[in-house]
């Protein structure tokens, strides 16, 4: 029973990272209709920058994390404005062409950013200097809760809750959804879609960056490949949760994490990913709108 609870906690902490990354990934997909292959690189970059902020600039952990998040956001904005903005002149009338073009430019950025990240880390897998981040382990009854697991869970709760509130309760959220639906329709209300798009890209990059930093600490692995693992599972979380549903993504992320850990503990670690992806496929087939099933509008 203790083992079950301990693994449940481990699964949730792992899933929190998937959910967090997925929220960033889903934001870009829901708002801009872009399947962004470069999203994983934002996580790698944020983790690398945060690590160097501690190692070279000597910043304390919270500031370094902020620097990493800002870097993730900045890279995301850069990718958006250099890689996606030129393609938006296709206009809303030609969605498939625009989506396809953006997928390709995002692949181009993925190649470039990953390769540059490899140069920044000297092709090594690095880690935050020991002792530079909270490393206490809390004892809760029979359970051990390392501080970073608590931070991951907290981050998912805060970011997930905050983004859900922002998306559904604020005028910025409404503007984001409006731009995602149709930039011209949003502009009819006076919304400058370019500002919203840049802000959304930055937000998405920052959130994925935060996921990257937390993953980099809890796995003691900061490298160019950090983001790719997050991306595959984050992508699954987005689809299972419903791509425009932040609550759904967060919960689906937790679910995937728990599923993964339980499969490894009780079934077979080699079929572990098969369960995750089979769940993903099942949702695509049976509940393509995700856990909570959103409205169901097709774009024009």
């Amino acid at each position, binding site marked *: 029973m203790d083992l079950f609870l301990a693994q449940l906690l481990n699964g949730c902490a792992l899933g929190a990272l998937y959910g967090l990354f997925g929220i960033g990934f889903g934001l870009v997909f829901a708002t801009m209709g872009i399947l962004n292959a470069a999203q994983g690189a934002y996580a790698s970059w944020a983790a690398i920058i945060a690590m160097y902020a501690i190692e070279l600039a000597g910043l304390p952990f919270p500031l370094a994390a902020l620097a990493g998040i800002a870097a993730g956001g900045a890279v995301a904005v850069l990718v958006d404005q250099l890689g996606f903005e030129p393609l938006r002149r296709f206009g809303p009338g030609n969605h498939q062409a625009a989506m396809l073009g953006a997928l390709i430019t995002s692949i181009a950025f993925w190649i470039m950013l990953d390769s540059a990240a490899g140069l920044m880390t000297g092709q090594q897998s690095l880690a935050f200097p020991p002792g530079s981040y909270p490393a206490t382990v809390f004892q809760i009854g029979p359970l051990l809760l390392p501080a970073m697991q608590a931070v991951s869970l907290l981050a998912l709760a805060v970011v997930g809750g905050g983004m859900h509130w922002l998306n559904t309760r604020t005028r910025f959220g409404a503007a984001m*959804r409006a731009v995602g639906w149709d930039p*011209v329709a949003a502009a009819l209300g006076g919304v400058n879609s370019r500002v919203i798009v840049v802000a959304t890209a930055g937000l998405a990059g920052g959130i994925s960056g935060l996921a990257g930093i937390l993953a980099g600490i809890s796995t003691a692995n900061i490298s160019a490949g950090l983001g790719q693992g997050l991306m595959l599972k984050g992508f699954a979380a987005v689809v299972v949760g419903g791509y425009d549903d932040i609550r759904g993504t967060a919960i689906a992320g937790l679910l995937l994490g728990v599923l993964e850990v339980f499969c490894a503990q009780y079934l077979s670690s080699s079929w572990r990913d098969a369960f995750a992806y089979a769940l993903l496929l099942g949702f695509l087939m049976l509940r393509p709108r995700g856990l909570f099933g959103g*409205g169901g509008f097709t774009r024009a």
Partner: protein
Amino acid sequence: MLSISQLKASYGAITAVRGIDIEVPRGTLVALLGANGAGKSTTLRAVAGIHRPITGSIRLDGAEISRLKLHQVVRRGLAFVPEGRMVVAPLSVEENLTLSSYAGRGDQAALLARVYALFPRLAERRKQTAGLMSGGEQQMLAIGRALMTAPAMLVLDEPSMGLAPAIVDVVFDAIAALHRQGQSILLVEQNAAIALGVCDFAYVMKRGEIVASGKPETLRDSAEIAEAYLG
């Protein structure tokens, strides 16, 4: 209020608007009539900043707006109700309306009250998802959204299109009411009869040119109207 002069616009090699002049004085309701493909919608898209014109000037209260983008035009005080409504389907009625706070024009609460007074139907369905409403309700919402930006100039593109006759009456009653309150309006309409019933002045377009203009009572039975629609 709005003055368009020597406006020329094209799609690639096809010239859709060939140098037209239109004047909408303050407080008037001016109609732009013509058959399908006459160039009316292109003219409006140019005015709204969605389609970039080749030459010509578009002035709002004396200020040039022909090089502005749609959201900038809206923020200057020209609101646009496009053909096909273009409401934001996944948003609720009220969210669609309050998007306009981005235009930064006027007291939002007062504007919202005014829109709900004009269209009580919208007030009833304020939490309703816009995409699930009927065409007539969506048209009301599109007009409401335009009004939420406290426009100096309201531009409507084919507001009667695809609506049941009873709803068309409701929409045009509202347009007439706005006109009475002193709202400057440019109305593009295929249904000449109904447009001529509410406007102060009308232009008739054919193949990208203005072929006639005048007061509704003089145009109503003119040969130009008949020819513009038939030929």
